[in-house]
């Protein structure tokens, strides 16, 4: 079993626990043990866009220091927002020795960050290091006939400099869906923002946006949507269910984390913690029928 260093991020320890548990399970089927960093802190979720405020870079850089202290050159992420923030901060300090020096001197208790850690998203591990054939190999319940809409959101592909795929025509999630035996669904909003943190104070914006994205996916024939971002998941799942109640509108589309779809295909849906979802995906996955048949 190959051991890889893994940065969970806060949500995967709490509201998105099904993302983490399904990822740990799915990785083991691929011969990989995700080893959680011994010590880590919140990445800050959003990369600071002001050029002068290094205080907001401390969270992400401190995590890179911890990865270095634990003796790893690579750290893997699952959450799109963590991935984006860690990669962009890493890029900033790697390209700006003066800023790195300032940050290192402020963090006087830790060893200096040398700028040699690489951050990789789980999808990059699957696509670039293992390959889609390897992802297909452990499939026990081919998802044949299941129409899955990929939802990239913002942070996997933007900005160009750190995105893991083309920001206009990404294909990594389509390839991922196909490798598990399901059908990728094409629809116009796969990369349109769900409204992000506006869910806290401008809920209406998010409700509308979640309604637009999910109903568009449904109209294109999607049985479910996949994402790798806990904030997108909350907005497309919980806020979609509120939108449907408010508008008295169409059938809900369940939203899964990428690794939940893997776990289902690999034959274990218990690790997915589907009871935590606002819209239960078990019917769409026909898991209930299967369970009945087995009985």
């Amino acid at each position: 079993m190959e051991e890889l260093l893994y940065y969970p991020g806060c949500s995967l320890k709490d509201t998105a626990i099904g993302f983490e548990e399904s990822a740990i399970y799915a990785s083991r089927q691929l011969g990989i043990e995700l080893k959680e960093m011994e010590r880590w802190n919140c990445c800050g979720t959003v990369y600071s866009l002001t050029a002068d405020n290094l205080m907001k870079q401390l969270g992400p850089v401190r995590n890179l220091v911890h990865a270095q202290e634990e003796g790893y050159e690579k750290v893997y992420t699952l959450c799109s927002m963590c991935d984006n923030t860690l990669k962009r901060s890493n890029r900033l300090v790697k390209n700006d020795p003066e800023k790195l020096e300032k940050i290192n001197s402020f963090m006087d208790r830790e060893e200096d960050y040398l700028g040699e850690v690489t951050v990789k998203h789980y999808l990059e591990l699957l696509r670039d290091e293992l390959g889609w054939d390897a992802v297909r190999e452990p499939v026990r319940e081919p998802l044949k006939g299941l129409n899955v809409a990929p939802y990239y959101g913002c942070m996997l592909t933007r900005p160009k400099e750190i995105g893991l795929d083309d920001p206009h025509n990404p294909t990594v999630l389509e390839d991922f869906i196909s490798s598990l035996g399901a059908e990728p669904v094409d629809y116009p909003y796969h990369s349109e923002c769900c409204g992000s943190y506006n869910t806290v104070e401008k809920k209406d914006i998010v409700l509308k946006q979640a309604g637009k994205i999910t109903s568009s996916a449904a109209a294109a024939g999607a049985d479910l949507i996949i994402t790798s971002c806990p904030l997108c998941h909350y907005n497309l799942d919980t806020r979609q269910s509120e939108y449907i109640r408010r508008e008295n509108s169409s059938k809900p589309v369940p939203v899964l984390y990428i690794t939940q779809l893997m776990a289902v295909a690999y034959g274990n849906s218990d690790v997915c913690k589907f009871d935590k979802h606002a819209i239960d995906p078990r019917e769409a996955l026909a898991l209930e029928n299967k369970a009945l048949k087995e009985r």
Partner: protein
Amino acid sequence: MKLTDSDQDLVAEVEELSGENLYACFQCGKCSASCPFTDEMDELPNQLIRRVQIGDRRILQSKTPWVCASCLSCEVECPKGNDIPAIMEAVREITLRSNVDETDLRDLDTRGLPEIALVSNFRKKTG
């Protein structure tokens, strides 16, 4: 039209905070075309940039930067390579750094909200 000192202060401030060249913008409007949230804004993203270019400090009262979620749709479209979300952030920061928060934690109903939503909201809307 001639810019006064106070007008030019705004331009310099936004350029310094964002690290972007405001005058690179030639008002093509691609940012606004790609923005998913223009319905909720009182100034389109390209209009906001124009107002900053002419040093109109009233832009600090605009709703637009607080609706912008840094989704970077505009950033990948800008033909001049401007980081428009960074310009939005600079406009937000001018308010936040005067010790005025957009979010008031005291009347926030946080029940059920995931940590990822709160962290990002506070990072963008409190100083």
